[in-house]
Every structure is written in C-alpha cells, then in structure tokens.
C-alpha cells in the first residue's frame, strides 16, 4: 500500500477539525474510510470540551473536490503512490 498525506481544506477542515492525516491506501477511494475514522476520533475529543458540538458529516468521494499532487482527480479508482499528497476541498465562491 502507498503511504500518502491527505489534507483537508475549506469547510471540510473547519467542520471536522482535521487538517492533515497520514494514510496507507492503494486507491483514492480507500482513503475515505481512514479519514472518517480520524474525524470521529477528533470529534469525540472535541465533544469533551463542547457537548453541543454536532457530529460532522461523513466525507465521501462524491462530496469532495479532490486534487492529487496539485492535479484535479475525479476518479475514485485512481491508484496511489508513496508520497502522494491528496487534497480534499469543499467548493468555494466569493468576491
């Protein structure tokens, strides 16, 4: 399995409290299970300080804009390589 870094940006990071994670996975689609596990752990920790905290939504491949090493990747089955940096982003707009 490839050792990759997953970084969350935008609302995904603000909602989950997870900025980055080291994950081992073969394919892009496989990282989401690990990321969601970590998000749950962080949520349970944060819950101790703020019992009213809402559980963040589970992140799935269909929800996130995905970049691998700076390039947009819309394929769930994309094979990963050691050292890949994966960015999961929420859509954004502004002015």
């Amino acid at each position, binding site marked *: 399995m490839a050792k990759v870094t997953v970084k969350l*940006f*935008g*609302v995904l*990071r*603000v*909602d989950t409290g997870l*900025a980055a994670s080291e994950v081992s996975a073969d394919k892009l689609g496989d990282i989401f299970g690990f990321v969601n596990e970590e998000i749950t752990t962080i949520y349970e920790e944060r819950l101790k300080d703020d019992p009213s905290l809402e559980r963040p939504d589970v992140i799935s*491949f*269909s*929800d*996130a*804009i*995905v*970049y691998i090493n*700076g390039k*947009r990747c*819309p394929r*769930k089955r994309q094979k990963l390589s050691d050292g890949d940096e994966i*960015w999961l*982003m*929420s*859509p*954004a*707009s*502004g*002015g």
Partner: protein
Amino acid sequence: MSNLKGYMGKVLRIDLTEQNHRLFPWTDEDRKRTIGGKIMASDILFQHVRPGMKAFDEDNWLVVTTGPLTGSGCPNTSRFNISTISPLTNIVTSSNCGGDFGLSLKRAGYDALIITGKAKEPTTVEITADSVQFKSAKDIWGLKVTEAQEKLPKDTDKLVIGPAGENKVLYSCVFSGERTSGRGGVGAVFGDKNLKAVTVKGVKTVEVAKPEKLKKFNRKWVKTLMTHPLTGRQLPKMGTAGLVSAMQAHGILATKNFSAGRFDGFESVSGEELTAHHLVSNSACTTCVIRCGRAVKVDGKTVKGPELEVLGLLGPNILNDNIENILKWNYELDEFGMDTISAAGSIAFAMELNEKGLWDSGLEFGKTDNISEIIEKIAHREGVGDDLANGTKRMSEKFGGKEFAIHAKGMELAAYEPRRAVGQGLGYATANRGGCHLNAGYMVVLEGLGLDVDSLTPRGKASITIMFQNLMEAISACGSCMFTSYAVFPGFLVEKPNWLLTRAILAAFPYVGPAVNVLNKFTRLAQINIPLIPHSMALNHVCDFHATLGTLLTVGSHGYNMERMANIILGQKAGADKLPKRLTDVQQDPNDPRTKVPLERLKKDYYKARGWVDGIPKYKTLKRFGVKMDKDYYESVVREARTDG
C-alpha cells in the same frame, strides 16, 4: 414622484458650488428601464457626460443610487452604488457598498442622490427628509475614517472619506460604517469636490406592493440562501477568505505580481488560518443572512477582517506569508481610505519594478517591514507614495514594465490569476469599469472554484461571460448583494462534484454557448421566473412589476451597453479591452500552451455575441437594448474612438 412601490419617488440633486439643492427629474418609465442602482446611475451619467470630461472637472457628477429592493425586507438588499467618472481609469466607475447609507437615504425619502459642482472649502452635507445643509468640515478634514465618522452626528448614516481621498489618491474610496465603495477612486472625486462627508437621517418606510406575498416569498428566499452550500455554508463559515486554498489548488492564486498561480506559503494566509486563529466573530451588512464579513483583532482592537482579495494581493502576490501583517495593513488601508485591491496591486508592481531595476521605491518582494510606512506615504502622497498613489498604469507609463503592469483599463486586477481561468481573463478585459472580478462576470465560480468546468478552454466562455455580466448588472441594480447570485447553481452541482450527473452537466457547459447566445440576443425570450434567481419575483412583489428572468437579462444588457457607450463618449478607444502581455503571451506552465489567456479568440466570440465591433456597440445593438442616442452623435464619438490615442 412615483406611483411604483419599492421606490421613494424622488432623486435629490445637490450643487456644492452654489450650495443649493433641488429634485432631479426621474420618471417611472426611467425606473422600469433601469430598475435602479448602478444601471440608474449609468443612465444618468450616460446622458450627462461629454467628450473630454474628466474625473476632477467641476462638472463631473457623483451619483449615489439605491435599488427598489433596498429597505423592502428582502434578504441581502442593503446595497447602494456610487458612480462617477473614475480618476483611475478616466471612464465610468460604479462602486457598490453594503453600508447603511443607502437604507437611510431611502428612509429620508430619496432613491438617489446626485452631487454636482465643487465646494470652496472642506464641506459636509447633512440630509434629512426636510432639509439639506452645507456645513464646514474643516474640523474633520485630515482625520482618518473612523475618527471622522465618530465626530459626525451620531444618529445619522454617513459617507466619509479618509486622508487618501482628500489627497486624491486615484484609488481612494468612500466608507459607510466599515463598508466601502472601494473601486475606481470615488473617494478622490469626493476629495476633489472638497466633500469630506455626507450624512443622512430618515424614518420613512419603504412601501411594498404585495406585503403578505413578499413575506412568504422572503421566508423561502432566506431558506434557499441559508441552505445553499456556498451562501449557507462556505461564506458564513470562512468568508471569502475560504477561497485562498481553492485558488491555490486550481493554480489561480495571484503570486509575485501575477507571475505565478501558486504560492508555497499559502496556508499561512488562508481562510483556514484566519478562521482557526484570528476570527473574533462574523459580521454582516444590515439585512444580510450570509454574514461573510470577518471581525479580527489588530493591536487589541476588534476591527474589520480581510477578505480574499487583500489576503491574496498582500500575501502571495507580494510573497508575504504573515497573516498578521495583512490584518494590520488591511486596517491601515481602511483607515486611510484606500481600495485594498488597487493599493496592493500597485505595491506588487512597484516591487517588480524594483526587482527589474526600473524604479527603486524601497519596496521588495518578501520585504514587509516598510509597507505600513509606504501605505501612509501613499495616503499623503509623500515621496514614493506620490507615484504609487497614481496606480499601476501610470507608474508603468513613467517607469516602464507595461507588459507586467497588472491592470485592465487602468484598474488593478483582483486576486484571481486568469491564465488558468481563461473566461475570467476575458471578463477582466471586457469589464466596463476595468479589472474588476465582479463586473467581469465572475467566471471563476464556474472555472474551478464553485464548479469544475474546463477552465482552459475558450469554448463557450464568451456567451456565458456575457450572460453573467448582464445578470449580475441587473441583480446589482435591484439593490441586492452579488453573493445572492451564487445560489443560482443547483446545490448538487456544488455539493456533489464527482457525481456522474454533475460531471456530465459540467462537461457539457462549454457547448451551451450557441443556446446561451440566443438568450443573450433575444433576452425577452426568457419569460420565466426561476427559484434560483428570485430577484425578478422579488421585483414583482415589491414593485408590482411583471418581471421575469428575461426582464433581468434585458435590463442588464441595457445597462452594460449603456455603460460601454458612456465610456466611449469619455474617450475609451477601440481595442481598449486588453490584458497585460504577461497574461496573454506568457504561459503560466511552460509545458502547457493552454495556460495563458487566448484573448483575441475569446474577444472575437464575445464581440460577435454582444453585437460590438472592437469593443464598441453597433448602433443597432444600442437600439435593440433601448439605449437612445442621436445617430450623428454616435458616429462622431465612434469615429473618435477609432483614432489612435
């Protein structure tokens, strides 16, 4: 007076030279043709301006306009507009603001305010429903924005300039509370007229045509805005600052004076960093349900936080990765009363001039310890600040570097690097007020930020740009915040970027050009109201119009063509829709020839679809969209526009 609800029925004209006032004639037919806001202001200026007129002429008018939805109870509608001849661009600028001045102007009984002439000494104008008074502003002349506001009558809403406006910094702005009419140097026109402030006080209410229907309608509208992924989630949680990372990912984050689209230190100046470590609270314009504003601490004081533009342009674009610096500079620029975009763009250009040995202003990429001092020098036009106060275009004419002088028609570009968002590049080049991202049509929202349409293809971009430009023009004229237009995209397109349906729709986008062009040309065909663009229905409930999407497109086209003709009258030349060579001739990625703006190809499509030639509307195009102009006069100004200048 007006028989239409939503309007107060009067336009106040104030003459600073003669220190008197009267009503300006404006009919219901005028109201229906322009809706209000920036299009109403364009119409007034279009009829007033003449060849050769300049921003600092006594005869230049400041036109402050509201929209019919302002004060009606509709969400996000406290916007007002100031238009005038811009000293920065020498063409019409329209500068929109979310402060409370517009609401109070309507409560005083006026839809708009026209300021003419030039006062002999520093003056404040105080407006109520019954009176207009001219008072000396000698005691507040020289004061920064907040201090000047504090010295003015407390129970009023105000327009105020800072020292930059007094010293005619060409990109100085006007404040209403902490909100700004930022772009195009409106503040310098105030300063030139010796007008430090305008105050207004009113207690009238805005009557609406169908109050019960409007209440029900507004509840739905608020719900749409608050549940949409962009207006209900991203903007409230992160503000526009949330775009920094998305722009980095997409390669459109202006870096080192637009020489690159990515910055290694971007995370330090991102919305994530701002939210996690510096955000005190959200802030909002009155009537806003999005609340994209940020409040932060600077030197222990809670002040307005930065938005995307200043984070990008005083961060990556000058190679600064210290967000605390940006919070401080943003505050300083506000207090001196300067447009953060143009100030930051001018600073970045000066840094590159220095790097290339063309002008040593003391500014250097990555050097941050002298920027506060430079900002103060700009505001007072001292030393190197005098040249910086004239903006990028004039500096390039004096020192060289035109190919990397990042402006369009003299206005500095916003923080979106367009070589990986070529539709945005076309928008920057064609925008009537110059390098403005919003007047451009804001194609980046499609080209990788909100949606993921192929951002490098020119296919279909011209027609979509035109539609967005026209639609945003009309939405602004209503008195609405532009951000309400982001809810136009069905939520699933935004929230489910990798769904097959989403990808299929987005892949088809570049091919819808011909169909969109039919609507752009025959705007009235769109005789429908759609929930995702509720502004037309709002007009019906507030004003009892029979408005549809087609009405918005028609009025928007009218406005866009009229603004363009006003600019031509003022001396804009054929071929003025340009970008600096760095963006059109130099690839952002040396290995990818598509990473530059194919402007000539895009303009060809754009002009054909607009019914323009070399950036000048054909006479029949003006007629199509109801822009009335004497044929001989038209031909004479067009002839002049075709001469070398």
